């Protein structure tokens, strides 16, 4: 039981990771795939930040009366990761716009059909 309480955060992070993964591989629409990718990314952030929390700690900002801080290192890594994630999502969305303009569709099976037919 204490296992479940202590590991609940990781299990939810894995659940979200698999939901995002399922969206990426099972969805036919390109925008939905990108949304699934973004869910996957945020679940990894959740995993890291959960590992960084210290019991009875506080945010890693020096202040009077606080002496136990949560680990600032995962926070720094995830700050970088969030911004890089939005940058790559923006490039992905720009590609989707160009695909729509060129092929007229963003559904995966229609794209494959258009490419296969000469």
């Amino acid at each position, binding site marked *: 039981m204490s296992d479940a309480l202590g590991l609940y955060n990781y299990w939810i992070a894995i659940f979200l990771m698999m939901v995002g993964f*399922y969206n990426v591989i099972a969805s036919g629409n390109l925008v939905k795939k990108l949304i699934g990718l973004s869910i996957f990314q945020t679940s990894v952030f959740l995993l890291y930040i959960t590992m960084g929390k210290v019991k009875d700690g506080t945010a890693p900002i020096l202040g009077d009366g606080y002496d136990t801080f949560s680990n600032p290192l995962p926070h720094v890594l995830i700050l970088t990761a969030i911004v890089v994630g939005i940058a790559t999502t923006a490039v992905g969305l720009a590609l989707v716009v160009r695909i729509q303009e060129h092929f007229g569709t963003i559904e995966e099976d229609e794209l494959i059909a258009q490419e296969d037919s000469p």
Partner: protein
Amino acid sequence: MIHVVDMTLLAFLALVAIAITRMTNLFATSVLTGVYSLLMACIFTVLDAVDVAFTEAAVGAGISTVLFLATLSLTTQREKPQRSPNWKALCVALLTGGALVYGTFDMPHFGDPQAPVHQHVGPHYIGVSPTQIGVPNMVTSVLASYRGYDTLGETAVIFTACMAVLLLLQHEKRRDEQSAVEEKPDKEAMEHAMILRVQSKFFIPLILLFGLYVQFHGDFGPGGGFQAGVIFAAGIILYSLVNGLDKARQIIPPNVLHGLVAFGLLLYAGTGLASLFMDGNFLQYRALAEEATHGEHIGILLIELGVGVTVATVMTSMFFSFSGRRRS
């Protein structure tokens, strides 16, 4: 008590993720993604990651939703509904999930202070940061000074993404014949948006001021270059949404915008080079002034400014590119 709040929010998050998977209306899915990001920001606050929560709320619930909606306005609104769930993909996802859950049984429990991640480097930074750098926000001191090289790389990544989006979306097709037609509908749209215009006149200066506050207050509380850049961009995007893209382009010419994108990155790398010329290593800020902590403060100020300028202008020019594209 924190456990109950934490577990409830995570359960909501799982439900929202399932809802995103099941919906076929892509506009609704984009809004749900914004809700998901806001819930994630709440969870980060509960887990003491205030800087990360700030960034996630600004980036995930703000910029990301705007970019998704801009893409959807240029493509399609509805996803083709799947006849039945994809069983093979579901099996693969369940197997991978099962393997990962099996792996979590060796992990340290939530909040354990003896976990391996809290030995060695973390306590070392917490111990030396007050004396070596003297900035209260330890995330800023690690981000800007101890791991400043990584942040330079990250700024370069944002810069490259902006270049990619500009290359893909910059040249709008059939711009000349469109501009003559667009005059009239714009006037009607403006009258409908009167309440929004008055409201935004009140709020946009406050948003920009808040962005500046977050930029320079990042040393003492949650904040810093990334969050400030995104908030600044949000103010400009609000102006552009309410008053039209042409007016926003008149106020901030695209040439100036592109120049500022490069300027921010140059400022960051330039600070590193300056410390190289002043008898230190690359990005060793203590060489920038007589006293070490003074030099660190100057260095952190300059590079956060560079990051803020780059992020603000990158987000703005990406939005201009998306919304300047005419629907074919």
